[in-house]
């Protein structure tokens, strides 16, 4: 049975083919975010899995890279450090190299999700 789950990180719904139950952790197939199912019904409610900031963003970028078959370059740790810094200062994992702290710049940002990496060879 297919389920549609809304991801609050990338603000898009994705199709989830496995069984769903409250408390289950699922990975958004669009952005790699770890979500926890809060309510199962006609509409499935999932929220960001409560976890320590560094773990959350590391898991997310690892999941995303695996989903998209990307590899990390030597800047990985520096960028993760920048993301953690922005999360501490502005409350979410906004891209450390973009000025606007807006939802579309939450990592992995909209441009990256729209295949920017293919064009530029790296995420921005």
């Amino acid at each position, binding site marked *: 049975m297919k389920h549609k789950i809304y991801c609050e990180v990338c603000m898009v719904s994705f199709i989830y083919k496995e069984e769903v139950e409250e408390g289950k952790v699922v990975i958004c197939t669009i952005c790699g975010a770890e979500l926890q199912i809060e309510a199962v019904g006609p509409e499935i409610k999932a929220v960001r899995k409560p976890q320590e900031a560094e773990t959350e963003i590391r898991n997310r970028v690892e999941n995303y890279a695996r989903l998209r078959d990307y590899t990390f370059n030597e*800047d990985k740790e*520096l*960028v993760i*450090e*920048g993301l953690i*810094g*922005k999360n501490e*200062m502005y409350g979410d994992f906004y*891209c*450390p*190299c*973009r*000025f*606007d702290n807006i939802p579309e710049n939450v990592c992995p940002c909209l441009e990256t999700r729209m295949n920017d990496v293919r064009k530029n060879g790296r995420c*921005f």
Partner: protein
Amino acid sequence: MVKLYALSTCPHCKKAKQFLDDKKVDYQVVDVDLAKGREQKEALEEVERLTGRKSFPVIVINEIVVQGYKPEEIEGALDSET
């Protein structure tokens, strides 16, 4: 004249500063996220005018604009400046 527009949170901006320091380049830097009021507004407008976006670093070497940390491009622009 060399000008670097940066964000204090951006690791690539730190690398760009290091690169210019290592090359002993005399440059002006604006940490746009730390700048206040009019200075921030003008810097943002300039970056958007030059690159069409508000991503950093942006390095301006006379007329040449390098968007992102690209050492070869920066070096090429510096060479053409002298």
